[in-house]
């Protein structure tokens, strides 16, 4: 289904450090492994409009914001995926509204994976909205993943067994 420069099937996943996004990441890695594909983990950071915030508290350089988010996401993903060495995982930070960013990154993907709920990169957001937006707009199949129930006993997400923490 996915045609691009890299012939391996692409699984795109949104990461924001929330438990749901972590579950989504593990799910995405498991999906990519089964497909002999690769994972693109996307950390979207939405810079609020100038009018909505105290201007002096704003970061001055959007690229610095994006880079910071990417570095944090990469560190987080590396910690989380200590055992996923067989699946290539790329982590990128992107500026923009998470839904649009994810849908755009997943335009040629075999699958887009999102957490059921998450949090904005900078502020908590009533989520489900990103997941919902992806369902509405993505052209590829979208999988919505919940974190396993408390106590981590069950295997709600297939990749849960691979969590190393």
């Amino acid at each position, binding site marked *: 289904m996915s045609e691009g420069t890299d012939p391996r099937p692409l699984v795109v996943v949104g990461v924001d450090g929330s438990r749901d996004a972590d579950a989504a990441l593990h799910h995405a890695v498991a999906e990519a492994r089964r497909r002999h594909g690769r994972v693109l983990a996307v950390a979207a950071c939405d810079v609020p409009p100038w009018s909505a915030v105290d201007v002096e508290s704003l970061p001055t350089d959007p690229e610095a914001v994006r880079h910071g988010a990417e570095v944090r996401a990469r560190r987080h993903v590396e910690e989380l995926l200590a055992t996923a060495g067989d699946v290539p995982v790329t982590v990128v930070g992107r500026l923009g509204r998470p839904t649009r960013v994810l849908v755009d990154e997943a335009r040629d993907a075999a699958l887009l994976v999102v957490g059921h709920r998450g949090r904005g990169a900078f502020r908590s957001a009533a989520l489900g909205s990103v997941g919902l937006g992806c369902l509405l707009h993505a052209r590829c199949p979208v999988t919505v993943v919940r974190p396993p129930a408390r106590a981590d006993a069950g295997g709600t*997400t297939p990749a849960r067994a691979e969590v190393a923490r």
Partner: protein
Amino acid sequence: MSDASAVVVGLDGSDGARAALHHALGEAARRRAGVRAVVSYLPTDYWTDLLSADLPRRAPDAGAGATARARAVVAEVVAERGAAGEPLPERPIEVLGVAGPPADVLVDAAEGEALLVVGHRGRGARHGRLTGPVAIGCVLRARCPVTVVPARTSSP
């Protein structure tokens, strides 16, 4: 291991559901899991759309008709995938008819399973790309991962 549990897919005769079935068969093949295709139906009294148009006025058993149609769709899609050389699960595909509202039926059927797959839009929605209420209901309530599959744009 969760690979032992099934991939559950909702069927309703729509293009979205066919695409969902395609996706579910591929998933199950990769996971070496079984597929349970679930079709929900409502008693004839509650049918308000063209679902009942090809049935006799007083269908004695709505479930039998719905399940038979679902079986036919499964056979077609399996044949399509076979012809295209796309992977199919090794285990036989289970087709299950359950009375009740679609989202409730699917969420119940997917309880404890590996994955629930539903189409982007169900019957009665021919245009546009809005996600159907059944898909949304499943995503909101199912405990397992839910995959929503858009209708295949190109190939039949």
